[in-house]
């Protein structure tokens, strides 16, 4: 079974417990007053656990042929821009704002089924370390460029 410690014990042993949870990837339950339970867990382990919550971006070009509308159905987030770059930047900004609001308002959102279904997707995106990782989570790995010509 999973290792459980109470808060008082955890304070004294935090370095050892951290090693156990992070280096050893063995989560540790920390209990307060015998009721409230928290989990010390490696960030990388959580990233792997939520990796299957794949996000998608539906891309629709504007009628003028220059801009794009980007739609993330899992979160119902939309962004657009007058160019591909602007649309991408606006989407990242909208996603970051969505995640921040989701966590800040979670005491309210937790009462709604549609918001709870989004939780693993929000958690996954929130673990991105930079815009590059965020883009990869949204669009998948960037396709490799095809060689432009054969090398003699």
């Amino acid at each position, binding site marked *: 079974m999973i290792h459980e410690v109470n808060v008082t014990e955890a304070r004294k042993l935090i370095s050892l417990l951290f090693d156990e949870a992070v280096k050893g990837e063995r989560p540790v339950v920390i209990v307060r007053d015998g009721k409230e339970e928290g989990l010390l867990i490696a960030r990388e382990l959580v990233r792997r656990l939520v990796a299957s919550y794949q996000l998608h*971006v539906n891309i629709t070009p504007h009628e003028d042929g220059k801009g794009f509308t980007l739609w993330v159905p899992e979160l119902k987030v*939309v962004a657009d821009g007058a160019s591909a770059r602007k649309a991408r930047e606006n989407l990242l900004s909208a996603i970051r*704002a969505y995640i921040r*609001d989701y966590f800040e*308002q979670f005491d309210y959102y937790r009462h709604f089924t549609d918001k709870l279904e989004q939780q693993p997707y929000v958690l996954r995106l929130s673990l991105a370390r930079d815009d590059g990782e965020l883009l990869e989570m949204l669009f998948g790995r960037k396709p490799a460029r095809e060689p432009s010509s054969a090398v003699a």
Partner: protein
Amino acid sequence: MPPRWGHVQQFCEIQGYKRSETDHTHFSKPLPDRTTPGTMISHGKDGQTITPSTWQRVWKHQLRLLSEDEFWKGLEGEPVRYDVSPTLEVPQFLPDYLQLFLRDKLHYDGGQIARLSRDEAQVLMDEYYRREILDA
């Protein structure tokens, strides 16, 4: 005709949406089926007209209104109807923009287009433009 973002903000305020702030303004509305449709508006965009493809996402999928007319009624202060019925899998015809894309960009013929579902066509479009978005 698509509205401006300021209209969406007005609609949400008139209809009693809950408001929260980040670097965007967020609106959400609790419905009896324990869901909460909502939208978000980037600061300083009130005067911008919403593009047609974005507008479709806003009124239909974010606000989950029963029809676009509900938005304009709501903006006048009338009660609005939300789409709270269970989602049924109904055949979806390809909208014009997807048909044009398949024909003009991927050179599909009528038969090939007819055999595609909307989701399949959207995946083809997403893949086609993905590189352009990432390389920009």
